[in-house]
């Protein structure tokens, strides 16, 4: 919301010779001890796969530091599976993984999985996730305006018996590109209602649109929002600094599962 006020500033700034109002400065940062950063999304039918990196002091070399000595274990129902270090690039999603198992995950809604990551420096990260059921997309509609541009409207039914959290993606053509729309929401104000997500007049005839509705855990919702808040706080004079709300203990990151419904439509 506070971004609106940045736009409010615009007319005022136009009146000024606003050139040269930014300059580089030197800021001395306090010493920082790097922490383990874990990103792990369990997906039924896929192997256990995750990325283990390290956080770093802001002005250090920009490339992420891979922790190749990290040992990873995922436990389900008393069975502990080691996920070996095996850097892998996934063509379809454009994602990199540092650890990938041979075993495929076959969790059902309600199943509980535990994660443990440790390295030779003695750092240890743990986390837990409970597999969620999918929430099906009911309809995807679109409507053209007089300039032959269409907006998109995706609807689904919220579950009445639980506090639910959602993440919504709209990609064009391929999942490899960044999504056109990417947001999270809760059913805080819309429990047990039919929920619709709209867009601007962004689409034309013939566009291939991939719509994904994730049913997500609260811990994932909190993590996503806190990372978004932290990113927005850098550069917004009205924002407060946000702490990252990790779902894991002992480090930074997210351990959750992906329960999603995906539909591909061609705008006609």
């Amino acid at each position, binding site marked *: 919301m506070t971004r609106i006020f940045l736009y409010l500033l615009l007319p005022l700034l136009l009146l000024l010779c606003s050139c040269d109002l930014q300059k580089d400065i030197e800021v001395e940062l306090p010493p920082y001890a790097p922490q383990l950063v874990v990103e792990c999304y369990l997906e039924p039918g896929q192997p256990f796969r995750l990325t283990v990196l390290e956080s770093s002091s802001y002005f250090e070399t920009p490339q*992420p530091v891979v922790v190749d000595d990290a040992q990873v274990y995922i436990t389900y129902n008393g069975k502990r599976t080691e996920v070996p270090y095996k850097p892998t690039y996934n063509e379809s999603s454009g994602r990199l993984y540092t650890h990938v198992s041979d075993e495929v995950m076959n969790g059902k809604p309600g199943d509980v999985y535990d994660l443990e990551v440790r390295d030779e420096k003695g750092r240890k990260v743990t986390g837990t996730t409970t597999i969620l059921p999918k929430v099906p997309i009911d309809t995807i509609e679109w409507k053209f305006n007089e300039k032959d541009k269409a907006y998109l409207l995706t609807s689904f039914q919220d579950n009445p018996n639980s506090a639910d959290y959602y993440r919504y993606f709209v990609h064009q053509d391929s999942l490899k590109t960044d*999504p056109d729309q990417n947001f999270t929401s809760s059913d805080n104000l819309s429990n047990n209602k039919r929920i619709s997500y709209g867009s601007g007049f962004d689409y034309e005839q013939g566009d291939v649109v991939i719509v994904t509705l994730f049913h997500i855990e609260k811990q994932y919702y909190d993590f996503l929002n806190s990372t978004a808040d932290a990113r927005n706080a850098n550069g917004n004079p009205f924002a407060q600094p946000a702490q990252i709300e990790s779902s894991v203990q002992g480090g930074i990151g997210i351990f959750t599962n992906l329960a999603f419904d995906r539909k591909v439509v061609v705008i006609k």
Partner: protein
Amino acid sequence: MRFPLFLLPLLLVLLCVIPGFAQTYAVNGIISSTDNGEPLAGATVSVPALQAGSLTNEKGAYTLQLPAGTHTLQVSYLGYQPISRSIRVSNSGTTINLALQPVSSQLQEVEVETNTLRQKLNDTRMSVEKLSSREAKLLPALFGEIDLIKTLQLKPGVQSGGEGSSGLYVRGGGPDQNLVLLDGAVIYNPSHLFGFFSVFNPDAVKSVELYKGGFPAQFGGRLSSVLDVDMNEGNNESIHTSGGLGLISSRLTVEGPVIKDKATFTISGRRTYVDVFTRQINKWSEGKEDYNPIPDYYFYDLNGKFTYKLGANDQLYLSGYYGRDFFNFDNNGFKFGFNWGNTMAALRWRHKYNPRLYANTTLSATSYQYTIKNEFDVFSLDLTSAIRDYSLKTDYDLFVDGGHSIRFGAMATYHGFTVGKLNTYNGDSLTIGAGSNYKAAEFGVYAADDYQVNARLSLNYGLRLSGFGNSGKVYMGLEPRASAKYNLSETVSLKGSFASMMQYIHLVSNSGASLPTDIWYPSTRYVKPQRSQQVALGVSKLFGNGRFLLTNEVYYKWMHRQIDFRNGANLFLNDSLESEFLFGKGRSYGNEVYLEKTKGKTTGWIGYTLSWTERKFDMEDNTEDINGGNWFPARYDRRHDLNVVVLHKLSKRLSLTGVFVFSTGDAYSMPVARFAFQDVEGEDAAVVPIYLRRNGFRQVSYHRLDLGAVLKLRPKHGEADLTFSVYNAYNRRNPYFVYIEQRKDEGDGRILGFQAKQVSLFPVVPSVTYNFKF
């Protein structure tokens, strides 16, 4: 324990009462203006030979305790010619009413003897800053927009919220801890354009008084300051029109008698017109590829006041304010409208029972609200938050023999809160309705005695009992107040004060700026009222043949149940808002040095403040802490703050002014580390900043020089002048905020590194305003 150390000198002063002074008699009366007959609040009435003096209250009434005999009474008031009168005192109940003549032009005003420094020296009150609209109009201003609040920021102990901001941060308190009163009624959001301009039109305002500490018992409801704004009353003699044409706004005031010597009116309005230009730019650029229209923004405000003399002992005052900001945006089928503002109406009845007893009863209604409307095709959304108050208060002034001036009274307020009322529609059908409504009642009763013990010592002590009820939960608080003045010699006085304050309503804002979406929230079962205690000690020295007054005040303020918000708090659309609150404590302490000169061709002041302001939110009261539960500096914790204000009358037609400001840079938070976040899909990993300490970094020092000139013109009718201002004359790039930029390879988009950048807001800004009066 610092507290006893602070109190020790105060106690010593209080105990130093020297008994055995001669019998004194009460002299009282009303000081008014010859111009329109309106009473002058804060005028100084004194007998310099006896070092006895008093200030008039807001109804122009004063009382002095004088021994029998003939004395020379002096009366002075900012912007008026001081007068002296010989009076004879032989018994109590002597009434001396006097009228002062205003100084007609702004230029002559430079040499007017403001509140004679001697009287300020002898005033029991401390930590009070008074400013007239006439005084503020002489000083240079950003975009030429005269702003009394920004002028008050040049006084010691008062900080601005940041570059160009009209927020007041008084002795470590936040802008939500200021009680802002316009003709006795509360104004909840005293700013336009998210804090760049205050809502007070300088043409509609007569004067403002800011209490930083030593609060009189009649005020309550906020922790850190009282800003008492008095609106002008209409001219009683003839109809006058005045106004100004400025760079971004224009204003017009009409005032005069309705019935001669019985009823007057004044009405003022102003409006910005940047939107006229931005609409034109949008029109020219219509149809251009990738052109995003500039949103429409403007504000206006209207002030009106009507006075009616019912008889010799009764007068009615009806005051009103209505102001709105508008922000509209319409692009590609997406309509966004946002408006916000205050509305206020107050009716005051002043009644004189006899020369010793006066009463003022005020009935007022005030509201602040914002509304956001959003439309897209058949979908629409509207969101409203508001606070609405209906208030009744009555204040009595009673002058009693033996040097007592007693004030007592009561107030009751009904608060109605609408918090985040949201409706979304699909066509005509409501899809989501949310929000909360609260109703609450607040009251206060008080009594205070201004006691002139003898020619050297005067005391003001009082007690306020306040209370607040919301949904069956009732809070009560006792708020003792006391101040004392002791004259060590003819030119040196010592002062001390103590004030305990309660605040029952809270501003929900984590932006650190005055945003229109900041909303007020009542105390509830879970959200307890805020509390503060403040002690202050001061010494004043008059020197240079009475031309200079040097004052030093030291203060310490404890603040309890301060409010901040959980990490990632959703303050915007949340039906259980209070679960986002965190409670903590605050402390502020410092020393203020103030040197002022009010006589001669060159006048002005130098104020220097050394201060600390910190907050602490630990696990004692919360399930989550801030900054690891350790003390952290407030954003506006500025160790050094220096203001130099100089006004120089060069000739009868030309006066020059200069303002220099220096302060320690703001405390701010900056990420110290980062991590890469790939997310579930997409090739580009995002860089996520990691923040550790709250406000752990310091911006570079802020300094700025503003220059101004007022050139009096010679129109055929009436008066006119041109006011020139140069804001930030040496074009200093002062820090507004700092962020870290990601540097990428233009070819492959690889991240090459990171660089801290400082953003400034205003370069040198010259402006000119044409003012007229006829």
